[in-house]
C-alpha cells in the first residue's frame, strides 16, 4: 500500500511533502516540549522494533497468505501521537531508502497515509474514545481493532486520491476505490487484531507500561490550530505549484491542480480542515477527464483536445499520430539506451584500470 514515485506528479508529491514536513516539524516541537530524556532511546528502539516486527509473518487461516504488522497504532498507544508520528515517519524513511519502498518523492504521501491518519485521526478519535483512560481489556481490544481498520481505510483512500490527482494511472475513481477499500478492510482487520493482541499481551505481562502511557495527556485543542495551518500550507503549495505548471508552456501535465486550483483557494479561505479539502478534491475528479489526449511533441493539439474530450475514445479528439515522430522516437530511444550502457561500461573499465 506504499504510494510510489512512478504514479505521482510533482505537484501532488510536493504538496504532500509540505504537509508531512509541517506535521513532522510540529511533532518534533511537541516532543521537545515534553522534555522526556528517557523517550529519546525509547522512540529509537521502538522504531527498530516496528521494523523488525514487520518482518515476522503469520499464516492467515484458510487463505494461504501471510500477514504482518504495520505498527502505527501500537506506537500511538505506547508513545502518544506526536512521538508515534515521528517514529512512524522514521521507519518509512528507512524503508524508502533501504528497500526502495515507494520512493523519495512518495515519502511525503506515505508518511501522511500511514502516519497522520493513524496517529492523529484513528488514535485520538477512535481508540481513545473507546478505550478511555482505564485499563479495561475488552475496551482496549475493541478500540485497537476498530482504530486499526479505520486507520488503514483512510490510508488506502489517501493513496487513491493521491494517485488520481497525479493523473498517471488510468484507473477511474470508482474502480480504484472498489479495488483498494475492500482489500484494505481485510488488511486493516488483521492490523487491528494484531494491535489488539499485542496490547492485551502487554496488559497481562506488564500492565504498568500501559498505565504509564495512558497517564500522558491526550492531545489537546492545539490539533485544530495545527490542522488549519497545514491546510493553508497545502492549499498554498498546491496553488503555487499549479501556477508554475500552467505558466510553463511546455505542458507539464498537472491538470488536476490546473482545473481545481481556484476552487481550492476559495475553500481555503473558509478552512474546512484537511479532511474536508481532501473530500472536495475527490468530488472534482469525476469532472476531470482522465482520458487526456496529449502528445508531448504537439502542445498545440493538447490544449484544444483536452477540453473537448471528456470521454475521448473516438478517433477525432486524439491528436494526429505522426508516424515520423514515432519512428524517430523509437530509433533514438534505442540508440540512447545503447549509449547509456556504453558510457557505463567505459566508466567501469576506466575505473578498473585506474
Amino acid at each position: 500500500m506504499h504510494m510510489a514515485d512512478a504514479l505521482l506528479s510533482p505537484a501532488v508529491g510536493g504538496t504532500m511533502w509540505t504537509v508531512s514536513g509541517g506535521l513532522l516539524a510540529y511533532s518534533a516541537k511537541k516532543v521537545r516540549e515534553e522534555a522526556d530524556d528517557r523517550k529519546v532511546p525509547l522512540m529509537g528502539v521502538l522504531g527498530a522494533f516496528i521494523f523488525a516486527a514487520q518482518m515476522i509473518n503469520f499464516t492467515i487461516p484458510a487463505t494461504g497468505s501471510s500477514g504482518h504488522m504495520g505498527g502505527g497504532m501500537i506506537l500511538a498507544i505506547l508513545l502518544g501521537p506526536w512521538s508515534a508520528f515521528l517514529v512512524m515517519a522514521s521507519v518509512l524513511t528507512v524503508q524508502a531508502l533501504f528497500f526502495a519502498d515507494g520512493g523519495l518523492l512518495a515519502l511525503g504521501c506515505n508518511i501522511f497515509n500511514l502516519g497522520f491518519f493513524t496517529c492523529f485521526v484513528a488514535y485520538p478519535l477512535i481508540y481513545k474514545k473507546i478505550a478511555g483512560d482505564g485499563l479495561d481489556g475488552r475496551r482496549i481490544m475493541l478500540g485497537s481493532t476498530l482504530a486499526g481498520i479505520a486507520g488503514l481505510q483512510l490510508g488506502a483512500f489517501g493513496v487513491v486520491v493521491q494517485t488520481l490527482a497525479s493523473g498517471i494511472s488510468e484507473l477511474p475513481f470508482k474502480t480504484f476505490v472498489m479495488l483498494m477499500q475492500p482489500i484494505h478492510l481485510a488488511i486493516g482487520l488483521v492490523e487491528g487484531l494484531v494491535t489488539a493482541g499485542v496490547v492485551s499481551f502487554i496488559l497481562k505481562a506488564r500492565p504498568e507500561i500501559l498505565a504509564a502511557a495512558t497517564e500522558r495527556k491526550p492531545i489537546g485543542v492545539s490539533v485544530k490550530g495545527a490542522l488549519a495551518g497545514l491546510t493553508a500550507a497545502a492549499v498554498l503549495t498546491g496553488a503555487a505549484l499549479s501556477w508554475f505548471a500552467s505558466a510553463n508552456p511546455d505542458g507539464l501535465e498537472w491538470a488536476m491542480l490546473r482545473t481545481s486550483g481556484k476552487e481550492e483557494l476559495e475553500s481555503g479561505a473558509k478552512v474546512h480542515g484537511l479532511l474536508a479539502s481532501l473530500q472536495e478534491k475527490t468530488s472534482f475528479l469525476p469532472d476531470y477527464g482522465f482520458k487526456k489526449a496529449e502528445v508531448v511533441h504537439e502542445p498545440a493539439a493538447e490544449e484544444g483536445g483536452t477540453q473537448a474530450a471528456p470521454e475521448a475514445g473516438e478517433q477525432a479528439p486524439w491528436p494526429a499520430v505522426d508516424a515520423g515522430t514515432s519512428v524517430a522516437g523509437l530509433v533514438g530511444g534505442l540508440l540512447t539506451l545503447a549509449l547509456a550502457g556504453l558510457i557505463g561500461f567505459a566508466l567501469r573499465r576506466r575505473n578498473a584500470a585506474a
Partner: protein
Amino acid sequence: MGQLAQNLTDIGYMDTLAAGFTRLHRLDPRAKLLTTALFIVAVVSFGKYEVSALLPFLLYPVYLAAQGRLPVGHLLKKVLLVSPFAVVVGIFNPFLDSGVLLRVGDFGVSGGWVSFASILLRFFLTVSAALLLLALTGMNSICEALLRLGVPKAFVVQLLFLNRYLFSLTAEAESMSRARALRSAGRGGMGFGVFIQILGHLLLKTLDRAERVYRAMLCRGFDGHIRVARFSNIGRPELLFCGAWTALFIVFRFVNLPVALGQAVTGLLK
C-alpha cells in the same frame, strides 16, 4: 537462509557499500541528496505518455553505479524485487486506454501501453536513484545532511537511533522467528496465537533494551542533547557535481534528445 536473514544481510551490505572510497563516496552528502531529489522531480514531471525523453535520465544511475564501483547485478535485483504497487496499478492502463498513440508502419500501439511503459521507466529511475544514493552515502551521512539542511533534530536523532538498533532488533526477531519455524511441524505454530506471543515478547525485550540504552547513555554523560558529528564540507567537487547534473537534467527535461537523434539518423538513411 530465511527471508528475514536475507533482509538483514541486505541492509548490512548497503552499509558495506557506503563505506567505499571513490570520489562519489567522498562527496558531501548534501550534494548527492539534493541532486538526487532534483533528478526525481525532473523524472516525474513528464507527461504520462512520455517514454523517449525519459531515456537520457538513465545516464544518472548508470554514472553513479559505474563511477561508484557498485555491484550492478545486486542492485538491479533489488530494484526488480521491490514492492510492485506501481506496476500493479499501472497494468490497468493498457486495458483502460486503447486509443492508438504510436504508429510504426501498420502496427499501432495504444496510449495505455505507452503510459504503462512510462510508469515502468519512472519506477526504475526513481527507485534506482534512491538505492544508489544510500549505497554511495550511508545512513549516518544522510542523517548528517538532513540535519544541516534544516530537518528537525528530534527526527534526525530518531533516524540515527533507528538505524543503530535496526540490526540488533532484526537479529533478535530473526532468531525468534527461526526458533518458531523449527518447532512448527507442518504449519502448526505459524498461526496467529504464537505470532502475537512472539511480537509481545519482542516488544518486552525492546522496552527493556530501551531502558538499558538509556542508562548506558546517562553513564556516558547524556544531558538530553545528542550531538551529530559533521565531517564534510561543500567544496569545488560538490559544486561541480551539482552544477553539471543540474545542467544535464535541464537539457534532458526540455530537449527530447532521443527523438532528435532518431530524426537525424532516419534522415541520414533517407
